[in-house]
């Protein structure tokens, strides 16, 4: 009995052209969403003007445009939209990775105490004046996030290092740092400061400029590259750590690399835009319903859907209430939750 003789044609062929077409289509959708985000706002700018402004800057074209329009497009809205896309992609990617590594559908980027640590770092700078004016709010938040991640990791390793221990260590770390944040806010903040903190905690893209994009976009792209390189290793975790090890995965190394990558991505995003919720938890699930659990497809799908969703949420946050910008974390949950409920219902299992 030869191998070929019994090789019944099971549907394993990969239609690469279909995947390529889908990927291209999604990228086009993302580009379109970003150009919408640039055009929509208090001063509405036609899509053609947006295109011309971008062409002027990137390709050195010389279309005649009003300086104000070009300034709005380039200096304010495009950087903001690109940052929203980077943050959405990075958070959704982190969620997808953590859900696989920890084998827990409730895992999300903040499960390792990163957003709690970032908030403590942020209020320490904002309210206590920590860092003597040298440390920016973002730098403080990033430092807080890293400190929290290191503490949680040390606790998780000390507690035995299983997936459940990592999650419990994250819970302990998050509670501690959230308590510290609340302590600082209630004892030291004025009402105005407390409102500012609240706004920051819910996430805000206000004040985003190009330097932020130069930081966030490479982090998101780098994180994507690292996680794609480990996509098959993540698949191997389907049946747990021992099963992955028996399939030849260097379990400890892969876990360290991927946990570090998600921590870095999340810390970078949180320190720039605050802890935007919902995206990291739910987008991976939505992507899984669409493309299945295989990480070779799930990771790019999560990143792209996360990016599109976040840019759309940013648009919504600017147009829902006239003259006012909602915190983007409110919008992601307000619109994302019903959308996710719909997906959940459509994908319900026959009982």
């Amino acid at each position, binding site marked *: 009995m030869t*191998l*070929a003789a*019994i*090789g*019944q*044609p*099971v*549907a*394993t062929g*990969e239609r690469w052209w279909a995947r390529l077409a889908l990927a291209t289509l999604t990228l086009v959708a993302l580009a379109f969403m970003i150009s919408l985000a640039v055009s929509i706002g208090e001063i509405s700018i036609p899509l053609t003007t947006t295109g011309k402004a971008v062409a002027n800057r990137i390709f050195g074209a010389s279309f005649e445009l009003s300086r104000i329009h070009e300034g709005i497009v380039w200096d304010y809205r495009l950087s903001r939209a690109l940052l929203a896309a980077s943050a959405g992609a990075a958070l959704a990617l982190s969620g997808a990775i953590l859900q696989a590594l920890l*084998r827990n*559908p409730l895992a999300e980027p903040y499960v390792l105490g990163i957003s709690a640590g970032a908030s403590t770092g942020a209020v320490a700078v904002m309210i206590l004046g920590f860092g003597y004016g040298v440390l920016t709010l973002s730098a403080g938040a990033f430092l807080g996030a890293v400190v929290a991640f290191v503490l949680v990791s040390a606790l998780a390793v000390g507690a035995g290092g299983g997936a459940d221990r990592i999650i419990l260590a994250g819970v302990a770390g998050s509670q501690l740092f959230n308590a510290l944040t609340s302590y600082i806010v209630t004892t030291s903040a004025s009402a105005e400061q407390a409102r500012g903190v609240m706004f920051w905690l819910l996430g805000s893209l206000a004040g985003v400029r190009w330097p932020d994009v130069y930081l966030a976009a490479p982090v998101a792209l780098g994180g994507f590259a690292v996680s794609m*390189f*480990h*996509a*098959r*290793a993540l*698949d*191997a975790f*389907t*049946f*747990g750590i*021992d*099963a992955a*090890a*028996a*399939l*030849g*995965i*260097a*379990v400890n190394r892969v876990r360290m690399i991927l946990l570090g990558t998600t921590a870095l991505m999340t810390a970078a995003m949180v320190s720039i835009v605050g802890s935007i919720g919902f995206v990291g938890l739910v987008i991976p699930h939505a992507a*899984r319903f669409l493309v*299945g*659990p*295989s990480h070779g497809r799930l990771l790019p799908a999560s990143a792209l859907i996360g990016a599109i969703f976040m840019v759309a949420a940013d648009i919504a946050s600017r147009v829902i209430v006239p003259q006012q910008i909602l915190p983007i974390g409110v919008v992601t949950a307000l619109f994302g939750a019903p959308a996710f409920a719909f997906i959940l219902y459509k994908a319900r299992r026959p009982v």
Partner: protein
Amino acid sequence: MSISVRDVHWSAGSAMIVDGVSIDVAPGKTLGLLGPNGSGKSSLLRLICRLRNVRSGIISLGDTDIAALSRLDIARRVAFVEQQATTDAQVTVLDVVRLGRTPHRGALSAWSAVDDAAVNTALFHVGMPGRAGQLWHTLSGGERQRVHIARALAQTPSELLLDEPTNHLDIQHQLEILSLVARLPVTSIVALHDLNLAAMFCDGLAVLHRGKVVAAGTPEDILTERLMADVFGVRAHIERSAYNGRYHVQYRID
């Protein structure tokens, strides 16, 4: 020897789980690993594929000490089927069996015809070629077990380690799986509870008791009423089957 275990010790905390075990399995042979619950069978299997590191002693595959092999090198030749590994992910039978190709593929290399052939052959061997698209959570316990075995076969191992592979299986599939394992040209170690199945399908048996090998040899050599009483704590009557010539254990409760 294909698998050689030399005076291996392993402990969890202060409890010595594997206490100076030595066994040898010749290429292509099937060794049945017997012993009551907690006798160290599962731990020994995990040591052989280096999911745990030995405290002392040497485990060799062919002529190579596994301590000198990378995890990937081990996975390319040894496949391991755990007890009751499950998942909440929405994976299909095909997804799971394809995992078996993981050690043979680079991080970025494409799926090849060789991979396809290995997966299809494995599905065929466990009698599930038509079930490739079925979702994991709709499978029965026995079907899941067969899919795990198919995943291990897709790994195209030269050594196969099975931890109670017949758990949850109906008698037809117990017989099918064990005769498949006995027939395959791979070296196998199978942890089993059913002594009669062990006598039927294994070339050799090793009996573990409190982490030590208390008997090793052919089924005819070691299956004795004395052993049944000492190790398993039951009284039994053992005779050669008039039908197939294998040893047959009958339990006495009088």
